């Protein structure tokens, strides 16, 4: 069966840790890191990467436009 798998890449140094992407994700994939970036912001990252479907919700609400989204159809066994 074909399953959709996705992934996001956050431009960590440009993320402001606003958290707006977190509730926008229907799969609860994203969390803010305990670590901070060069500007002191707790940047967003994929906490549960297996669950990402590449729906783009997080990216389109990100005020700083720092999320790139990838999607593939994956064959599962």
């Amino acid at each position, binding site marked *: 069966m074909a399953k959709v*798998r*996705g*992934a996001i*890449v956050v431009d960590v140094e*440009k993320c*402001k*840790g*606003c*958290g*707006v992407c*977190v*509730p*926008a994700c229907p799969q609860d994939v994203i969390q803010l890191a305990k670590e901070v970036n060069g500007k002191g*912001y707790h940047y967003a990252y994929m906490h549960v*990467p297996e669950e990402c479907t*590449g729906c*783009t*919700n997080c*990216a*389109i*609400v*990100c*005020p*700083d*436009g*720092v*999320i*790139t*989204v*990838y*999607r*593939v159809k*994956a064959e599962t*066994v």
Partner: protein
Amino acid sequence: MAMEIKDIIKPENIVYRRTPLLTDKPLSYCPGCGHGTIHRLIMEVVEEMNIQDKTIGIAPVGCSVLAYEFMDIDMQQAAHGRATALATAIKRLLPDRFVFTYQGDGDLAAIGTAETIHACNRGENFIIFFVNNGIYGMTGGQMAPTTLPGMKASTCPFGRDTKIMGNPLKITELVAQLQGTYYVTRQAVHTPNAVRKAKKAVRNAFEYSKHNKGLCFVEFVSNCNSGWKMNAVQANKWMEENMFPYYPLGDIKVPQSEKV
């Protein structure tokens, strides 16, 4: 074998990336501020319509005063409130261009009220993008004409008292009454659904402005986390609960012949 992340993150699998019509400069806005999302939507539509060389934007005074640093198109920056006067001149001199103003509520609905109303009334053929966050964000959170009843701001620390300060100005409903406006809508950008609808409205505004039948006015009810003294996620929730009942989202005026 389960697929690994590195097999997914490949250029050919990109389904969303930041539009190249936003420059690489980090946005000057506070974390979570809607200004960034609204800039991006406008630039995505300009990219999709392939009108980068035909579009001229006017930046306001307010937090978005530096919009010309972030949008990779021709732009000018107007004196406080006067963006629509400048847009009028530019559009009349260069009628084949897509012209828009980008203005906050202090800029558009306080100091620029006269310019706004008269540009709408004259039916100028450009777009106004109006970012209503109910406050003067840039200067430290003073009360704006759009500040909600009871809402605190630095110049009304006990909340807006409508007996003394009047009621919030619904300038969008007001300009919709004028014959010169062709398309008037109110949107938001705080959730994925809102963003998708808002982007359609931005697209409509650019498409309609080809008709030369009047002014297209797109309001975005937006947040000002710093001025409201909340974090971004709280501010978006507060906006839903408090701003939307007073400033309901949706189309206010659509062209007669168009189904939107």
